[in-house]
């Protein structure tokens, strides 16, 4: 018996392939210049299907964050896990983890930059790490 898997989201395929090349893609509408994340077939601002995938600067700010202390699916040594919403400089928001940070130092508005880590299934995913103010220049 042949089992047919449902079609994968074509935009997600492109996004995940770019992640494996350590690139974070966001979509920009060629019609109205609106940036959007996650990628879709249509612009949520103007409805156009004329969209470009562009590489994000990978820089942004922590919009909000939490430290997950209890998670049934996770091993205790993986906790606490910093889950955050990141506002990229392009003007889009995405969920991610903050890594290589002192959990007590996290705060809303903190500047962060992207890096990529590999999951158990070998897929690379974007995570973020705090930037040194000097490293980044004038932002803070």
């Amino acid at each position, binding site marked *: 018996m042949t089992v047919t898997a449902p079609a994968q989201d074509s935009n997600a395929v492109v996004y995940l392939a770019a992640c494996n090349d350590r690139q974070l893609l966001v979509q920009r509408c060629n019609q109205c210049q609106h940036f959007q994340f996650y990628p879709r077939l249509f612009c949520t601002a103007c409805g156009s299907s004329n969209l470009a995938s562009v590489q994000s600067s990978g820089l942004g700010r922590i919009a909000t964050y939490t430290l997950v202390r209890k998670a049934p699916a996770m091993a205790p040594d993986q906790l606490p896990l910093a889950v955050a919403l990141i506002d990229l400089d392009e003007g889009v928001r995405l*969920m991610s983890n903050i890594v290589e940070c002192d959990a007590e130092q996290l705060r809303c508005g903190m500047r962060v930059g992207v890096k990529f880590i590999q999951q158990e299934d070998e897929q690379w995913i974007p*995570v973020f790490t705090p930037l040194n103010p000097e490293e980044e220049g004038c932002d803070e």
Partner: protein
Amino acid sequence: MKSRSVSIVGMAETQLGVIKDRSPMELGATAVVGACADAGLSVGDIDGLITSNSLVAPLMYHAEATAEYLGITPRHCLSVATGGGTTFTAIHHAAMAIEAGLADTVVVAMADSMRSGLSREQALRVQASSGHPVYERPYCPTVPAYYALIARAHMDAYGTTEEQLAEAMVSSRAWAANNPTSQYRDLVSVADVLASPLIADPLRLLDCSIVSDGGAALVLTRTERAADMAQPAVELLGYGEAHHYEHISQAPSLTTSAAAESGRMAYAQAGLGPEKIDIAQLYDCFSIALLIQLEDLGFCAKGEGGAFLQSGATRPDGALPVNTHGGMLSHCHPGNPGALFAVTEAVKQFRGEAGERQQTDVNHILLHAQGGIMSSHSSLILGRGH
């Protein structure tokens, strides 16, 4: 609002809390039979049945299977799934079915066994099934974590404190202490909440709702017909819904929810405002959800939800009784049916059956529920039927 002429004329709750010896179907059917008896009707009088599926024992055709279990043959059957908002969506669909002539006597029934019926594997699946599969789940968010993201954003924007969030549980227990059917009835202090373990900063164990078994059912019919029924009618005066996103990373605002919009619609339909609300029955899945609803539904200004809770306004001796049954923080939360107990309590308050929790001069009760991660919102205003 002239066309709205539908009332709740019967209701029943099952045993609530930890019920190990009844299946979700048995709980749901028991609630239906009880609600019909309360209304002075027989189960065979039901010609519309609206249910929500059980998470523990899901069925492909849940409402139809419930009808079959009861031995009835309704001409309108619907199973609703809008998460926490399921209850009020179902009530609204019941009203629409009655107004459209699809049915005359509609029962809304929901029950589940989230406390006793979930295996560890099922619980893990439930936990992992929220969040966008590509853009969120790889980061291992939990349901409390989503609400913690909202809480942190509210603290950052408005200076809301953990002490203020803790007041949600303090208020909930002050009501629950007077409700014999409440799963937890011990009073707690702000210090108790702050001493409970962190689940996802800044939310602690006692910022989170409980997990329960149980169910309830309502009987709805045209208000004009209600005059001949066994119980005084509780009329649907206003309803509003708003859906702004599904995944928290797509929320247009983390600190103002679509409750502001659904509330506005419900107030406009009922022709009244928050100052006319005698009791508010809100969706307290987490402390922060309650706090934001108090703001968005107009009971205090944006950013002042923390101070409002801290003032004691929502407690038994306060200006705005909130969740007089104890809410989902203390009373009963079997999943999708959770908000149904906000309705049964409202009916008790209108009928004068709320025991030690009974409020005087209850004319208008606002109920609000939300599904997803503060994503889908529904507001309902109830009044005394005429």
